């Protein structure tokens, strides 16, 4: 099963929770107080509440609704309404495998961990959501390289293309970027963009604004297609 890049490590500090989508499935990703990363089905087995609304309490994630606590093994540890009850071991959340490599959080279905296939030593720049599918974005990027462009348009040059990863050069400023693509519901996608070299803050800002420009172009294409 392929890994999905869901975001950057730096954007999920200890004791914080985020929500993401992996193969169309709703997933809660959280980091315990000591820093342990977990990815689970985003649903409390008790009443179906999204666990991404929950709170990290020490090494457990507590559901916002009735406060059931789940440890990093996905098993229920504590039910506040029955403080003296040891919760049955059968109360367990479906876990996903998760790992971190070079500042990227990767999640895949099932417990078997997979190794993500991107080169080591890249530098995270920005995660950005687009209101277009990953396919439209890919087509846009490939189209831009051959289409005639305005003078001030940054030219994206696709150097390599895989299913969920694209490598793009911006020759004008000599940036080599890696785009990790993640599909989101409602025909949206996320791109997690990394640079092959460490950038100064002003270069990151320039790249960030170029990405927004790319988003405007890709979303306009979606508008034309529908």
């Amino acid at each position: 099963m392929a890994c999905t890049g869901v975001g950057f490590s730096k954007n999920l500090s200890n004791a914080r929770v985020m929500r993401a989508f992996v193969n169309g499935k709703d997933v809660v990703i959280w980091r315990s107080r000591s820093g342990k990363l977990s990815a689970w089905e985003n649903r409390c087995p008790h009443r179906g509440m999204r666990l991404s609304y929950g709170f990290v309490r020490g090494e457990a994630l507590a559901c916002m609704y009735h406060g059931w606590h789940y440890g990093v093994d996905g098993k229920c540890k504590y039910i506040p309404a029955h403080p003296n009850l040891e919760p049955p071991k059968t109360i367990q959340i479906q876990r996903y495998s998760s790992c971190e490599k070079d500042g990227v959080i990767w999640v895949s279905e099932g417990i078997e961990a997979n190794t993500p296939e991107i080169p080591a030593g890249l530098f995270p720049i920005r995660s950005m959501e687009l209101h277009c599918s990953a396919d439209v974005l890919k087509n846009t990027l490939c189209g831009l390289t051959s289409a005639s462009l305005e003078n001030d348009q940054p030219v994206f040059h696709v150097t390599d293309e895989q299913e969920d990863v694209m490598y793009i050069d911006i020759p004008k400023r000599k940036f080599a970027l890696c785009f990790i693509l993640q599909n989101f519901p409602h025909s949206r996608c996320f791109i997690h963009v990394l640079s092959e070299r460490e950038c100064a803050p002003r270069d990151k800002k320039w790249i960030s604004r170029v990405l927004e420009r790319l988003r405007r172009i890709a979303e306009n294409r979606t508008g034309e297609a529908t």
Partner: protein
Amino acid sequence: MEFTLYDYALSGNCYKVRLFASILGVNYEKISVEFHPAAEHKSETMLQISPAGTLPILTVGEMVLSETQAMLFWMAKTYDRSGAWWPNNYDPMAQAMVLQWLGFSGDLTATIGQARLNSLFQTPIDRAKVVKCSVTALRRLEAHLTEQSFEQKKFITGVFPTIADLACFPYVALSGDVGTDPGLEHDSYPAIRNWIYEIKSLPGFIPMPGIFEMHQLKDHEADPTIRQVPEG
């Protein structure tokens, strides 16, 4: 009692004043006004107090303020001994940046605030258009906070929060529950998500309906899971 606040519990703008008063540790008199369904803020009695016919209203003796941004400024200048919430007089550009994002907070009320009123009270709006403008506003803040993070700045104008952060916070934090419209949920905005965590971590933070406080254990609190017998 330092001042009087005419307040509505569900209002994000009223919450800005309650939140800042809590952070500053200021006591004030709170008078509840029924915004919906009675529209008490438009009653003759209330219009005598504030002809603007809006909420919140802040009064100190004869002085009456009807704009939330002005209230935050007055509170900062009057009660903030740290001098952190409004930049000092020697830095006009820092002051200008705070004013710029205070202005932006008005855009949030006009977009996300309107979408939320439509969700709560079925006020008539062009929902598709308002949601689109809300997404534009959220994207602008997300881009700005991302650029701030490149310089290790966690807040809108720098490494410390100002009244601009408090002015922008409520309607951004509330946007996730405005509806199921794609682009309003915080999952789309990692920098905003982190900024919300930072605001919620401020000493004196208080919640409002729809904005919950963090339940992270404090150091002195016992971890209930410790009661469990360790495995193995």
